[in-house]
């Protein structure tokens, strides 16, 4: 006798919620143009993007990269990070493990708001690149005072 299990009605999420979640995820993924987030040949730095009321912050793990090999540019609401990581081949050595990859990389991140490109600042400390991207003043949300009689 064939027994089939059907989804119990109370466990299926409402289509509306799933759809809005899917759309949110899509927006986030669309924001990462250029290289994909998955690991593939070459070095794609994984990035984290955060925000507070005044700035966006982009951080990337880039150990052992010379700042001269790093290129950072910003326009409107996009920031592009590119460069190369060199892992010198050690002459005459026999390798037991070879996990660190070198190569070129390039990524463009699209932010939800326009940034003030003149005030973008970047630091490279201990192999972490931190880029501070101030939001354009006019686009910052402003509190509106509510008057009462």
């Amino acid at each position: 006798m064939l027994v089939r299990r059907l989804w119990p009605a109370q466990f299926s999420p409402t289509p509306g919620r799933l759809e809005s979640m899917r759309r949110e995820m899509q927006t986030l993924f669309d924001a990462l143009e250029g290289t994909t987030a998955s690991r593939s040949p070459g070095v794609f730095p994984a990035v984290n993007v955060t925000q507070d009321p005044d700035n966006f912050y982009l951080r990337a793990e880039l150990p052992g990269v010379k700042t001269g090999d790093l290129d950072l540019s910003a326009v409107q609401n996009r920031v592009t990070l590119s460069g190369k990581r060199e892992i010198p081949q050690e002459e005459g050595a026999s390798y037991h493990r070879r996990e660190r990859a070198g190569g070129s990389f390039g990524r463009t991140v699209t932010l939800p708001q326009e940034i003030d490109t003149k005030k973008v600042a970047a630091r490279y400390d201990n192999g972490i690149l931190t880029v501070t991207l101030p939001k354009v003043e006019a686009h910052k949300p402003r509190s509106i005072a509510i008057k009462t009689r």
Partner: protein
Amino acid sequence: MEGNRQGIEVTERGDVALSAEQTRPGPVFMPQVDIFEIPEVITVMADLPGVTADDLSVDLEDGVLTIRGSVDPPEKDPEESLVREYDTGSFYRQFKLAQTIDQAAISAKLSDGVLRLVLPKVEAAKPRQITIQT
């Protein structure tokens, strides 16, 4: 390039599995390494982004090399996350070394999140030409 972000996995070809004693909460990652050898020394290069010398410890005991590093989350309140592709946490990796190392002569250099460990082999471990007399 295989995923380098995974939960703690200490057992690896020839490595010793010991329970990791964590003093900081958070995820533990296995740093990517290059290990290469020439007649006199073994060199270990490890990617440890965000780790400073104060938060790094390297131990060699009974032929087991242990690298431990930790990173504090850089985000400050009230930052909220928009995209999160990597997590910060501790780094941990152990290796069992086949050769005997001159511990007093180990050098460790941490620069831009990369650790370069030079482990000189003990005299007796260096390959020696054996002349065959006839």
